[in-house]
């Protein structure tokens, strides 16, 4: 009987906790249009929206499916797994960290995983799950939302816009 009561309290308290999770994610996105894939709210400035082109929009879609769980502080399900990890993974808009990394490095670390590139092995390899085009789209998205903004190095023929 005691176990039953304990279980009941546990379930009830879990349910009571749910609304707060929902609200947290809802508070991040006030304008429903921001859920669309052709704009993204600036993560560090809720007043600003960033327009995304097709490739960046696809990147956003993939990001919110696969990456958001560890590379953002709010996820569609509410809590983020980021605080669980040590070292903490960079936020996807962390320009200070990611702007310095070349497109090739980003492509490699996503494809091969953290341990292959001398980073945290908690970052899994995605090369057998996502296509190279999809990974390029994710990089294009990260570049688009970067704060401070990302400026591509001035060299001809960067491969990430080629058709």
């Amino acid at each position, binding site marked *: 009987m005691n176990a039953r009561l304990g279980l009941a309290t546990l379930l009830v308290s879990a349910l009571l906790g749910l609304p707060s999770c*929902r609200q947290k994610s809802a508070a991040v996105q006030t304008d429903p249009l921001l859920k669309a894939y*052709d704009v993204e709210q600036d993560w560090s400035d809720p007043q600003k929206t960033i327009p995304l*082109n097709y490739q960046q929009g696809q990147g956003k879609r993939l990001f919110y499916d696969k990456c958001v769980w560890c590379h953002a502080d709010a996820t569609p399900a509410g809590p983020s797994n980021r605080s669980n990890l040590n070292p903490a993974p960079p936020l996807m808009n962390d320009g200070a960290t990611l702007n310095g990394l070349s497109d090739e490095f980003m492509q490699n670390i996503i494809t091969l995983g953290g341990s292959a590139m001398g980073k945290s*092995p908690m970052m899994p390899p995605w090369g057998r799950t996502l296509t190279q085009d999809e990974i390029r789209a994710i990089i294009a998205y990260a570049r688009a939302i970067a704060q401070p903004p990302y400026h591509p190095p001035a060299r001809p023929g960067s491969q990430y*816009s080629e058709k």
Partner: protein
Amino acid sequence: MAPEDMGKVPSRMRFLFALSSVVFVAVLAVSPVKDLRREWKQYKRDYVRYAQAHPDTKRLLADYHPGIDQIWIPEMNVVDRCTTCHQGTTQASLADASVPQPFRAHPAIPHRVKDWGCVICHRGQGAATEVAEAHETTLAWEQPLLPSRYIQGACGACHRGNLPETPRLNRGRQLLAQFNCVGCHRLQGIERPAMLGPDLTNLGTKLTREWLYKWLKEPRTIVDSSGNVTVNGYETEEEPRMPKFRLTEQELRGLSAYLSSLRSKPVEVYQFNPQVVAAWEKKPDLVEQGEVRFRQMFCSTCHSLAVTRAGETKLIGGDIGPELTKVGSKVDPDWLTAWLRDPQGYLPHAEMPRYLWSDEDLFKVTRYITAKLTDPDLLSDVPKLAAPKPEEMQLGRRLFLEKGCASCHVIQGVTPQKDFGPDLSNLGGKNVSQLEFGQAKIPRNLLAFIQAKVTDPASVNPAARMPQYHLNSVDLEALTTALLAMTGTPSASGMERLIVSHPQAEFHPAGAFGEVYERYKCYACHRFNGYGGDLAPDLSYEGSRAQRPWMIAFLKNPQTLRPTLIFRMPQFNMTDQEASILADYLGMVFQSPAVNPAGVNQKEFMPQLASTGKQLYEVKYQCRACHTIGSTGGYVGPNLSNVGNWMTPAWIEAWLKNPQALAPGTIEPRRALTEDEVKALTAYLLTLRQVTAPTRAAPAQGAGR
């Protein structure tokens, strides 16, 4: 005239001749100058200037061509001169957002511009060489450029199946089915669902005339000026499907009279065991206990309730069933008890599971609903309505057909009109001159027309029969996108036919399993071989995945496996027999061909191997980033503390090798594990077992069927 004067021209005439030739030459000279100043040539020159200042000059100028550029694809009837001005579309070095239009490169898309041209996706006039002619609606051209927000509508003209790349289009198509647009309109490739609104044949036993009056006047959904959707005054993200009809007072009285008089079968009033009632009536916390039970059974997985947190009230819960915040003021208490016991007794196709209630639980939960989920002011603004008069009922019956109610609702013996609304299967291909804007003060284009028609039909046509739908801005854009994709018959080039999946399953197994499956409506949330809902995990391969004892224990007492999930499986209070029927059938029938239990030799899983696996789990692959064991680890994937009791060894091996082969959309990435590593990890995972204290659910008595 004298002969000597012949050939002599008066000097005045000569002067005139000279002047006219000068004017003629001057006029002739204007046209090359005019030609030189043509819009597209200006862009050509600007591009050269821009290219010269760009670091990639050599490449850009090598690809430059001074004349009109054209993409000509005769077999697709494409003559696109857009690249005359949009010269950088394929130049990788012009991809950055800082490059001014029209020179910026096109972002990477699955179709090559060279093979498809531009107009197929973007619309506009491909052969035009002037900006206005190419982009806008002109007298000669009525298919202007599609704003990029709606461009997925162009994808949908050819791609009849859902593409992952076009979420907005997919959502729009889902809405077309959800709001049952095909109930009244013809739409290419979308079929009418088997059933949409509730069957109203027996409505009078459930609701009062006053409640119906209020509902018909203002379905509880309200969208305020900032676009927030509220139901009963509470904020929500879901739009209920019942639209608002613009009904007069007389029409409201007529329809409410007719509907409230529909009583084909009286409610079977359930007689509780008098001892149970006597014992429970005395308890002061009866309603609170009912609430606890309501929560424990996870009614909120399907039904939402208004919850106030930090001063903000929102609807929390699922949208499979209706929102219940004020249901106690809506339905008849006897009807409620009968419904909870046996929903299918009232509506044969109801999606609500038939729970196995104990008298005690049923009594408590009913009391909670009728005492707490109420609003005394709900019907305060409804006028006093007397008993329905025959002429009111007659009017109501006529209106039921005339207003199109019969397109979504069924009343036995009432046949709906065929093709009630206009055919929309070519709406997306319509020219502006084919649209009737009436007195509407909206821009004269297709997009504005569609959106006005959906959100406020009377603004376009005051006599429109179409009701008013409340859509938030995202869904309005999605719906518009899906309608833009309706451009008549799709090309018969082997493209998939558009299918909007219906959550109502076509899969209805027979036998003992079928009975339990229907009783608990497993398919409302789970998917079986492509049929069913998508709220809960796909169970098509459950037989390969889960061990039988685990399945039985889970069915009897569902616990969440993924800590981040909001919705959980309801507590059905299943009997042991029902749980084992389900587990047996799932184990027998729902097997994956990719999982081969015969290929696994459990004797290999020695402690030595398991400790290698532990090493791999903890160090090399750091699985704990996403999975929890005990109290440490991430919460992206399921908790693995009890995986040794839960999953079969063959499933674990197959999953580690290729998760997407077993669950195509799963987040877990596929890794390059060696055969030995797979074995070691499996051996380790199988050692993870929790000893659970046996939880005994109170045996159900009497109330269920």
